[in-house]
Structures are given as structure tokens and as C-alpha cells.
């Protein structure tokens, strides 16, 4: 069971609100398993303004390169610099030390559109049936 504040998208990103206007973003365990060994995260730049569903970077694994999207409108304010030398953190600990970046979000109501952990698990299970 993860922190109850985590929210998820159907594109397999997670969002963890850190305070009323800042949130951390990463990819889910399901996503990292699908991608396989991750070799690189090409992140967006600090200061980049994003609309919800804009690209925030590209994750490259030994199998494929996939764009990652911002679940929220806002501005990139921090990137996980540890991923530069240790991209495998995304595989090893996707919900904690493998986070991707933090954004200052401007439309908190968008959080309401995201999935709870239970709803996300149901969504994954439907796809696997």
C-alpha cells in the first residue's frame, strides 16, 4: 500500500502533492516493469511551463523509449539529479527515490481527475484480463 495521497494516470504516471501548489511526479511500478532496464531519463528543463498532458521528458530503456507526460498544468521546479548517474533508481524504487521531477501546479482541480491507487490497480487489471 502506498501513501494515500498518491494519484495515478492511465498513462502510468503518479503524482504526489507535496503541498498546496507543488507535486512530485514519477512513473508507476507497472510502467517500469513494462519498460525493462532503464538507461536514461531525458528530463524537461527547470522553468518549462507545461499544460496537463504535455511531455516532461523521455525515458529510454533497453526495450523502448517512451515519452512521459505531466498530469498537471504548471512549471517544472526541480528534477531528480540522481537519475543522471543512476537511472536504474526508476526500476528499483519507482515511487520513492526514482521520482522524476517536481512541478509547481496552477490548477489544483486537475488532481480531482486523477485515479486513486485502487482505481489505478483496477485499470491495470482490466488491461491484463
Amino acid at each position, binding site marked *: 500500500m502506498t501513501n494515500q495521497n498518491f494519484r495515478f494516470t*492511465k*498513462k502510468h504516471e503518479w503524482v504526489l502533492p507535496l503541498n498546496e501548489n507543488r507535486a512530485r511526479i514519477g512513473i508507476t511500478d507497472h510502467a517500469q516493469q*513494462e*519498460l*525493462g532496464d532503464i*538507461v*536514461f531519463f*531525458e528530463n524537461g528543463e527547470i522553468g518549462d511551463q507545461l499544460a496537463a498532458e504535455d511531455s516532461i521528458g*523521455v525515458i*529510454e*530503456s*533497453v*526495450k*523502448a*523509449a*517512451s*515519452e512521459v*507526460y505531466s498530469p498537471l498544468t504548471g512549471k517544472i521546479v526541480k528534477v531528480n539529479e540522481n537519475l543522471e*548517474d543512476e537511472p536504474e533508481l526508476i526500476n528499483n524504487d519507482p515511487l520513492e527515490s526514482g521520482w522524476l521531477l517536481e512541478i509547481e501546479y496552477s490548477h489544483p482541480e486537475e488532481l480531482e481527475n486523477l485515479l486513486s491507487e485502487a482505481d489505478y490497480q483496477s485499470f491495470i487489471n482490466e*488491461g491484463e484480463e
Partner: protein
Amino acid sequence: MSDWKTLFHKDQFRFIDHTNSIEPVTALDAFAVDDALALSVEKGASPTTMRIWTHDQTVVLGIPDARLPFIKEGVSWLNQQGYQAVVRNSGGLAVVLDKGVMNITLLFADGNKIGIHEGYQMMVGFIQELFADYTDQIKAFEVKGSYCPGDYDLSIDGKKFAGISQRRVKNGVAVQIYLSIEADNQARAKLIESFYKLGLQGEKSKFAYPTVEPNTMEALATLLNKPLTIDFVKNRIREKLTDLTKELQQNDLTAIEKEMYQKRKQQMIVRNKKALGDLFHE
């Protein structure tokens, strides 16, 4: 979606031949075009699409290659040999493109329903079908000692002639394969072997770069003992698509796709500048 042919049996299918066109100019442009098409397919603005393309004297690098301890020496040497270096956006490691190598991109939607493995299987199925008159021995498994090794290396008798990568943009998927049709694939492998020797210079690195053994690779023409050419394979692809699909459209990029291509090209330029610094030339 277990049968790869399902993808080709849609009501409409699109074929784009860029093997003889002036644009895309470089391999960098080619990857931007595939991004634009992946987005177009994803939005439903284009049916499932196959694009074929070639680029002469190019070494396409992966991001890990750009972190070789002596990347400058490696790329400078490639330039001296007459090869342009481009960092691609679809994962993987260094591969050689030239006039004897055909690239095929398969672009389809529903990436949320079609997994990475299935995406690869679709390309494998098509290539096996494409050459089914000549051989039933095309196998997909990692060929150790080849350049850019991966689970979806295509080989005959253990000699690799093709490799596949995959890029996912929203729910659009681009599966890209290079097919070394014309000889000399061992010469291509020797080029990459030398590139890694120069790029590593014996230093240990965190990333495991391949130790290339040229005798693990061979051109398809050599493996099949047939005088295969790019033009011959191009025609064969067109014939095969005509057989497989219900309605085959043949056209070029739309105005909207060209606009998206320009945006994606800028992203590719940024990526290449970041990865290669002064070694990158637009």
C-alpha cells in the same frame, strides 16, 4: 492482439516511401518525421502507416553512446571516415546506415492496448513474411557480439542482419527496423568495433557497451545468396502491403504533419546538442 497481420487488415493502410526523396535530409530529420507520424496516427489523423527510408554514411548513436569516456575521439574518427553521427530518440546503441541499409518504420495507434513486446512481434512477423519465399529461418533473439544487441535482433544461422527499436509518443507507437540488405555487413560491424575501441580506450565504464565481433553479422543478400538490392526490397514491400491490406494509400506528409515534424526536429537538435556538444553539426 496476438496475430501481427491484424494491424495490416484495417480498412485503410498508408505507405510512405522516403527512400529517394530529398527530404528528410538526414537521419535526424527521419526520427523527427517518425515522431510526427506517430502523433498523427495516435490522433486518428492517419491510418496505420509504414514508412521506408535510407540514409547514406550515417552512424546512429544511442544516448549511452554519448557517454563513452572518449566520445569526442570516437565521433571525430567516424567523421574522418565520412560518417555523420546522429543521436536517435528511440533507444538502443550505435548502428550503421548507408545506401545498402533499408529502414522501415511501422506506425500504429493504441499503444495503451498493444504492449512493447507485441509491437516488436508485429515487425518481426512482417519481415518474416516479406522474405518467406526465400527462407523460413529468420529468427529473433539477441546475437551476442553484434552491434546494438537486443532481444529482437533478426538473424539467419546466428548471423544478424537487422535490429529493431521502438518509440512511444502518447499512444502512438513507432517500431523502427534497420535491414542490412546489401553487403558488406562485416565492414559495418568493424566500423562500430573501432568506434567503441576509440570511445572506450580500455577504460571501464558503468554502462556495458558491446564488444563487437564482426563475424556475428552479415548482410541479408549474403545470407540468402541472392543479389538483393534496396530497390528490389522496396518493390517487394509495396507488393506485400498491397496483398495484406484492404486499401493502400501512398502519399507524403500532410501540412499538419510537416508542421509537427519541424517541432520535433527542434527537439532532436536540442537532444543532439546536449549529447554531442561541439561534435554536433546541423
